[in-house]
């Protein structure tokens, strides 16, 4: 790995950590449940990115499988939450 890519990966990890912090803040604060679901979906998407960066850093391509599975699981969880919100009974978040 060339040193340029090595330094760039550190910068990217830092940027994604800051981004995760912002999304986590929305997850804690988000006034309604759909806001939290949106934040969770973004966190899953960013975790896919972090796994991709980690695969480059370690040089192991097996991590890409994990990213693939996580991408599918995030979609299923979002659909499940949407269905729960639409068809579910009483909630107390707003």
């Amino acid at each position, binding site marked *: *790995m*060339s040193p*340029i*890519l090595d330094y*760039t*990966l550190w*910068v*990217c990890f830092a*940027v*994604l950590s*800051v*981004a*995760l912090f*912002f*999304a986590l*803040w*929305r997850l804690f604060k988000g006034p*309604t449940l*759909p*806001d939290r*679901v*949106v*934040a969770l*979906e*973004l966190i899953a*998407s*960013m975790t*896919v*990115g972090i796994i*991709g*960066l980690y*695969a*480059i850093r370690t040089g192991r*391509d097996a991590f*890409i*499988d994990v*990213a*693939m599975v996580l*991408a*599918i699981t*995030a*979609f299923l969880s*979002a*659909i499940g*939450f*949407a*269905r729960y*919100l*639409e068809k579910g009974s009483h*909630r107390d978040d*707003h």
Partner: protein
Amino acid sequence: MITDILAALFVLAGSFFMLVASLGVFRMPDLLTRMHATTKSGVLGAGLIMCGVMLFFIDSSVTLKALAVMAFTTLTSPIAAHAIGRAGYFIGVPLWHKTIKDELHGRYDEETHVLHSSAAQKEAQEENSSQN
């Protein structure tokens, strides 16, 4: 060497778009604008990072897997955003106070989950059902 630099550029661009998506979800005022920020930028960020992965491992199996990740996120993210946005509107998540246009206002029946083409048509239908 040159592929490493290209991979670094792609990964950096992907991380930047992820940060933009995250700032959007942090700063935007209501649910729909937050979703507008996250769904597009998040998918673009993940796709660019996967492009960087493809360029770093120049290998057909890794390229196929990374393309699969890109295809999954590109196909599923609009569907998930549609489902969450629909659910959010139907359960009455408040819109931003500066929202100019709400086309569904008065056309959606919260009890029956039916959309009407206009408020007048909804009233006509209610009159019909009360007469019957």
